[in-house]
């Protein structure tokens, strides 16, 4: 009986300890973010890695998301005779929910996993220890530029995703299904408020910090050997994806 209780207790304690460890990691890396010198060159390289290189896949995913939304929305709206609302039916979910969430998931898969593996391999091949030995702060060199790159890149990628999705929906709704182009855009402008776009941007900022936090943490404190890095990468991707969806729900309730 006491054995069972002890098991529950130690489990809870270890979860709490891990959470605290993660929080301390975040606070530490953010505190280095405001102390010069800043590493602009590394920041540029990270924006290139997280942002520019993700553009192709974001454009691809965005256009097909918009097209699917338009296709399904059109057939649903036709049943109630209000095809005119196709524009907002594509744009509202895209800007408020799908844009931030799906682009964050995509970037997690493309860039987050790579970041975890990169930092993890630096850890197991003792490059991080070498940096520390040379009195170069690994947080400042590795984590802070990545965090800032994510804060810059995530909202921009989300915006690209939204715009491409809206034009993908335009292609299907107007060019293939025969809606008038004026209806599509004017209804969209009529229904969308700045509020919706702000919510989308807040969400993508949150997801950017969340993904980078989890991925950098998992890589920074990876296990031993190749197996440890592979496990850390898997954990980072799974945990980021789950956290994105959970955070999306709670941000949704907060902003509704």
């Amino acid at each position, binding site marked *: 009986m006491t054995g069972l209780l002890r098991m529950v207790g130690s489990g809870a304690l270890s979860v709490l300890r891990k959470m605290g460890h993660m929080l301390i990691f975040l606070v530490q890396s953010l505190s280095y973010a405001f102390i010069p010198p800043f590493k602009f060159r590394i920041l*540029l*390289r990270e*924006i*290139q890695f997280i*942002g*520019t290189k993700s*553009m192709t896949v974001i454009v691809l995913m965005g256009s097909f998301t918009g097209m699917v939304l338009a296709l399904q929305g059109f057939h649903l709206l036709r049943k109630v005779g209000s095809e005119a609302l196709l524009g907002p039916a594509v*744009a509202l979910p895209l*800007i408020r929910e799908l844009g931030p969430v799906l682009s964050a998931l995509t970037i997690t898969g493309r860039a987050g996993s790579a970041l975890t593996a990169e930092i993890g391999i630096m850890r197991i091949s003792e490059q991080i220890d070498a940096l520390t030995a040379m009195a170069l702060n690994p947080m400042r060199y590795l984590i802070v530029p990545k965090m800032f790159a994510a804060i*810059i*890149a995530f*909202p*921009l*990628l989300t*915006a*690209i995703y*939204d*715009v*491409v999705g809206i034009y993908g929906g335009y292609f299907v709704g107007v060019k293939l299904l025969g809606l008038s182009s004026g209806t599509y855009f004017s209804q*969209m*402008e009529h229904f*969308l*408020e*700045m509020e*919706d*776009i*702000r919510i989308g*941007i807040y969400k993508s900022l949150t997801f950017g910090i969340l993904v980078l936090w989890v991925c950098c943490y998992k890589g920074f404190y990876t296990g031993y050997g190749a197996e440890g890095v592979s496990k850390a990468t898997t954990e980072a991707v799974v945990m980021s994806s789950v956290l994105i969806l959970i955070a999306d729900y709670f941000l949704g309730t907060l902003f509704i």
Partner: protein
Amino acid sequence: MKKFDLELAVGFFLLIGIICLGYISIKLGKLEVIGGEYYTLYADFAKAGGIKPGSGVEIAGVEVGRVKSIRLDKDYAALVGLEINSDVKIQEDAIASIKTKGLIGERYVEITPGGSDKILGNGGKIRDTESAIDIEELLSKYVFGKV
């Protein structure tokens, strides 16, 4: 082979991203970047139900501004502040009325121009107003008869 141009790649990404962000915020979110091209008029409505800050203001179906603020006036009327495009002149005997787009569409403020020579300036007040039509009230009057 030329060395990979880091600045160019990052600049390209930032440019595209900012253009997209600007497009959705200005075109779809109606964010006003350039201020100062509006002036404010006020109008007292007996009932301002259904309009909210951001609702459109139209003349002859053309959007000329938006509703800026709604608050309660001294005599329990709704004081509605309207932001009007500065190139649109509104006479002091113009009529402001709250209308509905379609049967169940959203509410907006329609301004019917007057014939006076006096033009309202910033902070002016439109005296003639028509309140929102309460469809529920009309229906109940029709169904139950006037009490």
